[in-house]
């Protein structure tokens, strides 16, 4: 049920030379390109097949690495850095704030499927804390007002590319 067509997925695999060493490159690229933001069974099977790996091997990888998901994600997954440099410069308030704005607990999508938020460790933007990351984009030096603005902007479709 992935939003990517078979040929789009195959193109990503070929771009990586169908090289089992680059299985993570492929899985991440496919996941980020798909709207639901996860690797479904069909895709896992396809990757296993093209790389001549067992499906069990692919699932072992999917479950080991935190970035890879096996469940559909919300349209915008807001990742909050919870490592100490960010946490102690205001990051501790982000989860609470998002819960207030979005009215769902951490890790649960909003009823419209638009938002979800959860904590992750350091993303290498520690000098900009507190931060939220959506896909490859980091929103840093957040304040309460900026978080409200960000949600508004996302809702009104300002960040289509994300």
């Amino acid at each position, binding site marked *: 049920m992935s939003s990517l067509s078979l040929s789009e997925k195959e193109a990503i695999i070929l771009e990586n030379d169908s*090289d*089992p*060493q*680059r*299985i*993570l*490159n492929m*899985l*991440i690229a496919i996941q*980020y390109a798909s709207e639901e933001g996860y690797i479904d069974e069909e895709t896992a099977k396809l990757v296993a097949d093209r*790389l001549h*790996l067992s499906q069990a091997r692919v699932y*072992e*990888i999917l479950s*080991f*690495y*935190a*970035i*890879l998901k096996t469940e559909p994600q919300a349209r915008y997954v807001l990742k909050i850095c*919870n*490592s*100490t*440099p960010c*946490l*102690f*410069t205001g990051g501790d308030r982000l989860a609470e704030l998002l819960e207030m704005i979005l009215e769902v607990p951490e890790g649960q999508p909003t009823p419209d499927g638009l938002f979800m938020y959860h904590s*992750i*460790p*350091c*993303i*290498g*933007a*520690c*000098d*900009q*804390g507190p931060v939220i*990351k959506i896909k*490859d984009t980091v929103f840093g030096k957040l304040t309460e007002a900026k978080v409200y603005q960000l949600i508004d902007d996302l809702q009104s479709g300002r960040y289509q590319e994300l």
Partner: protein
Amino acid sequence: MIKRNQQVLLARINKMKQATDVEEYQKYNGFSGLLKAIDMDKETILDELDLAQLRGRGGAAFPLGKKWRHLYGAKGETKYIVCNADEGEPGTFKDKALLEHDPLSVIEGMVIAGYLFSAKAGYIYMRGEYRRIQKVFQEALDNAEKAGFLGENILGIKGFNYKITIISGAGAYVCGENSALLNSIEGKTGRPRVKPPHLADVGLYLQPTLVNNVESFAGIPVILREGGQAFLDLGTKDGGGTKLICLSGHIKNRGLYEVNLGTPLQEILYSEEYGGGSSTGHPLKFIHFGGQSGPIGAVQNLDACIYSYKGLWDKDLSVGSGAIVVMDDQVSVVDYLVQVAAFFAHESCGKCTPCRLGTTRILELLKKFNTQTAVTGDLERLEKMLMHVTNLSACGLGQSVANPMKSGLAYFPEEFEAGIRETAVSVKGGLW
């Protein structure tokens, strides 16, 4: 040519308009280290590296010259060169700057290694969070190949064939551990291997393998270009060169800086050129050095501290990755350590019991101190647990969990004692 107090690793970053452009890179001394290397005797290259005293910038601080010499002497059909770009140490964002804004310097260092060890394949394992930078780096690789610095018969030298492949990480802190990283490159789950054997003898696909950090590789061209002695002179005699440091937390000028090893810590914290002092108006209280696995120092004990390998070791601290996380006096050390412990409990790969369960027990115990529900004996339990996890864990992750905890305990024992409810009935005996 290069003097103290001038940028070395970051020199090009602010000048270059197009970070992946080979011609522009060459305009700023790029590839001159490699060009020198290919005219040198291989033994002489190793001598220069020894002289330079570059210590591994990933955190372990092992002399790079020794590591390279070991690999040079290792026997195997083929040797692999691997760059560890899985920077995931909280408080650290230095490799990111090099990868994104001066990728060719990292490539040049890796090509020099390829030349020295007659390697055919190099890998750079870059964290999944840096996906956008992976694209920049690929562009730099493609440009370098077009210009004849990678690929077949590099620089016209017959048989000098060498390629570099980018492998993406996918969000596992433990993959920063070198053997876990190699497993991950082989397309497996990134769990550490039991060592020995040493990776220089039995590494990637069981062949001799060199694994170095991004910043270490970026330093190699500088050493060959300027000479080992000049590099050593940039730092101190226990460690040459400059160091990229990352200031974060309650410090006014958060960010990435390059300092000479040997710079006074006070200057780093308070001078306007660097940290600029507290960002909150509250006095600074403690500093977490080198990442989550590094030790913690109390600011009041660090008046005369010199930021160098020995300068920090003398205070039971360490340079580690170069992270300098500063906290003001509003932060309780126990509160801080709970978060550090949560990080380790989350990132333990689960392969060995002492680390898997130990990190969880440490987290639980610290939470008790933090909520004032600890009982008499818990302090001893915590200390014992820290010792067990350090001594019984298989890899560096488990072995270093105790560093921040023990140093926090040593400097601020009263904060732990305040977490003990004296009136509570002591738990009989030890649980462990």
